[in-house]
């Protein structure tokens, strides 16, 4: 509860604060301070179970350790994002405090999506998450690609919203009692009633769209590529995992009882997502686009949690959210600093900026899933969850082979950084262009992020133990 109210309030504070802030750098500090307080408030709620605000929500929201832990992870990732890329948000355009305000509104949406108990709140959460993003995607107003991406995202997003509403209507209509509560959906004892089944498939499609699962992923590369890189980083991490939490909570609470009936659908979607994401990423020349496809591929792995739908899966999904967000925010923070987004642009980085190169390596190894990084532990949880389910082993085998493919494109960047020399005249440009922007504080933060990834890789219980409060 704390997080929902405070993020909304702080978003408004940031928005109106824009009038009073003199310097361009001020909003960042306000945002960081506010977010830190919100995280503390949320952790207090997680520990004690008592929110500051006692609002009667008529059971439309539910708070438990799973939801609150996820919110902590999402907020903490955002804080890291602010710290690492705050300066780059300032560079996007003139309305800095509005960007921060919009991000706070997105967070409010993520919190709603993590705690909803009725389909209405789910819808609200998803929409509050999406609408500010349409604006953020187009925030680079003079850039045609950014405008195109924004429009594309908006049209596709609206379309998926329509499908989702349709699904909700079917679920509501299929329920004799006429209730929006997710626990009350009448899935029947044997086969699902037709109305409910149709509604469920519609919602599945809409959610797949939000988490960019194949075959509903087509917007992702263009939008991620067109949006200002800082906001791509935010979209690809916190918003995406927010979608996943909504996905798993809805399907666990509403359709968990008929798991066997829709599981094959999810398995096919997961396999398609893994296949398309990984295969297409291999052929990308631009690192930004490659990361967009890689985020699709990672979504495929996260779908294994919804496929398995057991305790390991839920625990793993939280860990995956943390691991994936940390690594992706880190690698994007480095990418933003690069003057050239192609893979060749990374050539020789190991010599010019060893700290950036080494931390980038940690992030990439984590995304690949090499032991000692958080990425490995989260993949391990996913595989364990899927195998524990005990059927459809082909999916696990397929996921693992795709993970091997992913090594190919992640390692291309590592190779460029360490084993290839920068083009001579380009190299000088790179080092001067890079030098301006890289402060010791930035390097320190990168190192802390990398260290966090390694610590989580050795002791994943640091995150998962929060679930046991």
């Amino acid at each position, binding site marked *: 509860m704390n997080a929902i109210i405070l993020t909304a309030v702080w978003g408004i504070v940031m928005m109106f604060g824009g009038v009073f802030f003199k310097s361009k750098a001020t909003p960042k500090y306000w945002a960081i301070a506010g977010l830190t307080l919100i995280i503390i408030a949320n952790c207090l709620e997680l520990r004690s179970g008592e929110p500051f605000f006692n609002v009667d929500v008529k059971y439309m929201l539910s708070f438990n350790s799973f939801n609150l832990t996820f919110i902590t992870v999402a907020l903490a990732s955002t804080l890291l994002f602010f710290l690492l890329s705050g300066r780059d948000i300032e560079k996007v355009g003139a309305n800095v405090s509005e960007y921060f305000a919009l991000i706070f509104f997105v967070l409010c949406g993520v919190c709603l999506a993590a705690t909803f108990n009725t389909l209405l709140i789910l819808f609200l959460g998803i929409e509050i998450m999406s609408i500010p993003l349409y604006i953020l995607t187009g925030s680079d107003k003079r850039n045609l690609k950014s405008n195109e991406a924004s429009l594309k995202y908006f049209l596709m997003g609206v379309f998926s919203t329509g499908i989702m509403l349709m699904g909700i209507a079917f679920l509501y209509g299929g329920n004799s009692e006429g209730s929006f509560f997710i626990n009350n959906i009448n899935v029947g004892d044997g086969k699902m009633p037709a109305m409910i089944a149709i509604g469920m498939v519609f919602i599945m499609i809409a959610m797949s769209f939000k988490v960019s699962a194949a075959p509903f992923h087509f917007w992702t590369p263009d939008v991620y590529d067109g949006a200002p890189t800082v906001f791509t980083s935010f979209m690809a991490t916190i918003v995406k995992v927010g979608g996943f939490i909504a996905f798993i909570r809805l399907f666990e609470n509403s359709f968990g009882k008929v798991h066997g009936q829709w599981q094959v659908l999810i398995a096919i979607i997961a396999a398609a997502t893994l296949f398309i994401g990984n295969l297409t990423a291999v052929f990308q020349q631009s690192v930004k686009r490659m990361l967009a496809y890689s985020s699709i591929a990672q979504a495929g792995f996260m779908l294994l949690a919804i496929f398995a739908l057991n305790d390991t899966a839920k625990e793993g999904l939280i860990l995956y959210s943390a691991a994936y967000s940390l690594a992706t925010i880190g690698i994007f923070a480095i990418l933003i600093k690069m003057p050239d987004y192609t893979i060749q642009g990374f050539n020789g980085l190991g010599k010019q900026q060893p700290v950036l190169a080494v931390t980038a390596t940690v992030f990439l*190894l984590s995304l690949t899933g*090499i*032991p*000692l990084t958080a990425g*490995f532990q989260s993949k*391990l949880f996913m*595989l*364990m969850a899927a*195998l*524990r389910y005990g059927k459809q082993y082909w999916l*696990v*085998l397929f996921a*693992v*082979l795709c*993970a*091997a493919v992913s*090594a*190919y494109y992640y*390692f291309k960047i590592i*190779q460029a950084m*360490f*084993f*290839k020399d920068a083009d001579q005249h380009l190299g000088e440009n790179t080092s001067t262009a890079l030098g301006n922007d890289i402060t010791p504080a930035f390097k320190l933060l990168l190192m802390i992020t990398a260290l966090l990834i390694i610590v989580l890789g050795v*002791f*994943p*219980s640091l995150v*998962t133990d929060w679930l046991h409060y």
Partner: protein
Amino acid sequence: MFGNDITLPHLLIFFPLIAGVITFFIKNDGGVKAWSLLSAIITFIISIASLYYRNNNELSGLAFNYEWLKYMGASFAVSLDGMGRLLTFLTAFSFPVIFIATYRNSYKNLKAFYGLMLLSQAGLMGVFLSSDALLFYFFWELALIPVYFLCSRWGGDKRIHSTFKFFIYTFTGSLLMLIGIIYVYLQTGGTAYSEHSFAMQSFYSVIFIPSQQSWLFWLFFIAFAVKMPIFPFHTWQPDTYEQAPTAVTMVLSGIMVKMGVFGVIRWLLPLFPLAVAKFDNIVIGLSVIGMIYASLIAIKQDDLKRLVAYSSIAHIGLMCAAIFTTKSMALEGVMIQMFSHGINIIGMWIVVDLIEKQLGTRKISQLGGLAHKAPVLTIMLVAIALANIALPLTNAFVGEFMMFGGLFKFSAWYSAIAGLSIILAAVYTLSMVQRVFYGSVNALTETMKEISLNEQLVLGVIVIAIFIGGIYPQPFFELTKDTVAGIITRFK
């Protein structure tokens, strides 16, 4: 001796690890070399201590168990058994030898090179010591990462491509094994905190029906087969050996391939005895094909490094075939041969490296008459070459004799075909010795000088080790007989 907190397995893993990390921060190049050598020697001393420690009849210093991921049932469990002692000793022995032999080599960014070398040593130690499946997988992958960087950064012209091939092969194999590990894990009994357990003993006590064993067998086997490498999975190996810097090639061929052999003995045989019995003909068949195939190719090689690489495939093939006979004689042979092969092949690489450093070429066709110029080097090489052919009195003879004995008990046919590889080994090794060291001196080899004292010393140590192993192999049997007996009982 050490109490419960710090045990010998700890020291063997963490000493090289910490030493490796420290290496990255040493400024002075000479200091880096001296520090790395010193820490490798200290590790060696620790390892010797671990060999003698068993006489105390106390397990306290040899095994350690820390509940690492309590709710998952994974623990940081390390222990030293006979096979573990043997292979950690091999690792600890090899690194100082490698460092001394390549002491004069210079690398760009020296501290990173030596740092990564020591990290790979720590990873290898971890593989040989862990008695928890998840921990084993951890180290199995971790040993690979430093080697990947070492080869790609400091290797030959085609290094990036060939190393990457190696990486993708082994990474895919490892991931398949990970599925296998998780599947077995889900069948195990629990601990106080978790439903299941990754501990080796829990793994051993699971009983699988034959159909499960059949497919689990392949998940594990592919990972190990890639690492060893066995015939259809071997294509990464000659390229990687050729392209890697020689010091790393020594680690790869001397120690890392043993990870595969070790994995088969430690995990595959005890877990899936029925599947091993079912697929023994396929695996032995593949190994024997690989032996003959690699030996034939070795004859045609002009590059010294590729020749040694192919000869290594042939030797490893014999080990793999011997393991799958599941005869105790053959397994004992494999144990001693794991050690002998490590020493012999490192000796071979040292000679190749010495020639290349002086003359700048590895092409056999460009060499000749080195015996006139460097008699000591020649004597050393001939001794190592004889061990490569497994002549009596050399360490390889003992192992190969026993492995062939076991193979013969299994099937005379396989043993006869595999026996051809000994003849072929004699052909390629001796013809290499003849063409490189004898014959007339040419313009290039005119410049060859005798090797320096410390190089003579290193090769001398290896040659002495070869003969000691050949004359008095008894300590090796004593060391590993428990491990072998433990495995054989699972097949009864």
